[in-house]
């Protein structure tokens, strides 16, 4: 993958650009509010992603989705109700730091963006949402899962993807349902999760469902994602003899956990990722064919039945020479939610765009769900994660029933060994 895909407006950084940028940095910021209205032929949209720092890899995948959608929209004549105005993406890098989230958001708002997309990490979202609320700027969350980000009566904040609760509920219930159909009882569940906000939230849900869903949580192991070895943790899990091992983690840690679990003959019916950054990631699967076969993952996904999704995947493959990941799908789709709102608002006015987003009823999308609609809090009421399984080196949808591509292989013989 070459570097050129990172920024649509990227030019070689010459001396001239350096000088103009340095000189203009403060001046632009000062004059920015005026600029916002000056050009009706473009719609400025700011993204804020941690493209440097610990989440750089995942953030880049999401950014690729945004870039793909923007070029597609602009290539097809821009926003029609705005006289074919083109969308201009203004970049922001949070480095996964809270204070940068704030200043980047303020900078983008000063530069006259109509809406903001981001910021990936929930930690950063908590403070950015204050900036967007105070400045009455629509804020479309991307990849942010923490349940309580939308609490507190926000008006300008929307979330297209499932939140942690939806993700955990549907993944676990899909798994239980599948087990019932297969005539296998799941009584004992174990979870390993990274010990940050994301993993802990997932762990809490899986623990809370235990009573309701009729299983016992026999082991819950939070871990530091930088740890270079998980053998002891997995041995603890193995000793608890679970039927199912759920794993909520990022890429590197999840890789090592799956490898060690295999070698340790962990002895479960299945290994299930929960919003796992690796287990349905095409690159991970391609790099680890044997290991990943028949892994499950509950994650946000695209609708495999949709012809449009197929076209989007082809376009992505052509442009980035890799298979589109679920983060790419989210980036792509969230930009179309905004596009749809812009068309209906026929304005770049933030208030009108907010109004339009809140009335979204988008059926032409590539997700595994019914129409995209937002409730009072800004959550997508129909957001549904898919249950995936790697089959033949490809993640396929095995639940929910409406979107199923293939029958699940369950129990997975190799994990039972």
């Amino acid at each position, binding site marked *: 993958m070459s*570097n050129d895909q990172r920024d649509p407006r*990227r030019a070689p950084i010459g001396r001239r650009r350096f000088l103009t940028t340095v000189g203009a940095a403060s001046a632009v910021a000062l004059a920015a509010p005026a600029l916002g209205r000056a050009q009706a032929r473009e719609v400025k949209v700011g993204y804020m992603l941690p493209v440097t720092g610990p989440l*750089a890899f995942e953030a880049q995948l999401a950014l690729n989705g945004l870039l793909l959608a923007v070029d597609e929209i602009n290539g097809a004549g821009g926003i029609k109700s705005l006289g074919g105005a083109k969308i201009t993406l203004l970049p922001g890098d949070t480095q996964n730091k809270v204070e940068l989230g704030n200043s980047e958001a303020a900078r983008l708002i000063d530069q006259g963006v109509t809406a903001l997309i981001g910021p990936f990490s929930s930690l950063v979202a908590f403070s950015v949402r204050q900036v967007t609320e105070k400045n009455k700027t629509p804020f479309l969350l991307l990849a942010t899962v923490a349940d309580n980000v939308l609490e507190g009566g926000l008006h300008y904040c929307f979330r297209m993807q499932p939140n942690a609760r939806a993700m955990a509920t549907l993944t676990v219930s899909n798994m239980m349902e599948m087990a019932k159909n297969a005539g296998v009882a799941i009584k004992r569940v174990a979870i390993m999760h990274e*010990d*940050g906000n994301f993993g802990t939230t997932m762990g809490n849900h899986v623990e809370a469902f235990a009573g309701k869903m009729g299983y016992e949580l026999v082991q819950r192991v939070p871990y530091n994602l930088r740890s270079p070895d998980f053998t002891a943790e997995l041995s603890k899990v193995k000793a608890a003899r679970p039927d199912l091992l759920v794993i909520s983690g990022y890429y590197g840690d999840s890789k090592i956990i799956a490898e060690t679990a295999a070698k340790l003959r962990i002895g479960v019916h299945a290994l299930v990722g929960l919003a796992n950054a690796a287990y349905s990631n095409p690159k991970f699967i391609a790099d680890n064919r044997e290991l990943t076969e028949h892994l499950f993952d509950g994650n946000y996904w695209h609708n495999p039945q949709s012809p449009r999704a197929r076209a989007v995947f082809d376009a992505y493959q052509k442009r980035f020479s890799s298979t589109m990941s679920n983060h790419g799908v989210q980036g792509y789709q969230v930009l179309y939610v905004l596009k749809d709102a812009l068309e209906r608002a026929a304005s770049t006015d933030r208030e009108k765009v907010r109004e339009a987003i809140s009335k979204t009823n988008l059926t032409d999308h590539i997700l595994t769900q019914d129409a995209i609609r937002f409730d009072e809090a800004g959550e997508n009421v129909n957001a549904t994660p898919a249950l995936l399984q790697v089959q033949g080196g490809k993640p396929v949808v095995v639940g929910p029933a409406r979107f199923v591509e293939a029958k699940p292989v369950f129990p997975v013989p190799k994990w039972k060994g």
Partner: protein
Amino acid sequence: MAGRLGPLLAVAALAAVPPLLPKYVLEVLISVLFFGYLGACWNILGGYGGQFSFGHAAFFGIGAYTSTLLFLHLGVTPWLGMVAGGILAAAFGLFAGYLSFRYGLRGPYFSLVTLAFAEMLRVIAVNWKAVGSSLGLVVPNRGSAPVLFLFADKLPYYYVILVMALGALAITRMIERSRMGYALAAIRENEDAAEAAGVDALSTKLAAMALSSFLTALGGTFYAQYFAYIDPSLTFGPAISIGGLLPAIVGGAGTVAGPLLGSFVLTPISELTRAVLRGRAGADIMLYGLILILVISFLPNGLVGWFRSRRPAAGRAA
């Protein structure tokens, strides 16, 4: 003459200009003052006393968590909570300091032990449900409530951190001219010689530790109120420890204005490198790292030290 007028003009400008600034510049200024404040707190122990703490995040986190927990559970206004947090942090500082100094840890050993204390607190916070574990704590902010340290606008926060930063500088200046200041400087230059000359090194260092940790904790409360969210890695993580010591050293460790000056240089540099190299992930921080190396190499005594060396006559006085 100019030496007196300069700072006054600077303070006047800092007080008068911000209402006119765009949001972005205001955010950056708040960042500058915030890290300048942390630098000033660190400076009391690290700059003047030569005790190079690498774990001031411990005190910062204690401050942020104490005031926020008191606010969320008991409704105590963070204005009071921040004092409570400061006292707790000072107590912890005395504890950690007593252990370290009592056992004679100096130089890199002291740095490492403070780093370890901060990391331990982080791990404890991650695993402790009652303080929110990794889910962190959200400070509910529904509009303006000055009594509760909540403002609808950014500007009041700016003035709060401005007063805090200037206050920290004023305290530093008082210490510099006090007996404690001389004792600290003597310890920094040569602890054994200082003790031989009758300086009570242990209690002097402990006093500096307590004050430094008390003030750092206040910064934690500011952070919680301003960013409205805290979690273990944000508050107890190494980023905060480094964020405080870096401006102090770049500006001039052991000088009154150094930390703030350092922050006024570092934060804009990081904003500029990001603006220039935007869209090429990593290039900006790479450049920042390079600039950091150059600044430390060519200004070994910080910005203040550099100014002084250019005005040798005036420099000796302070």
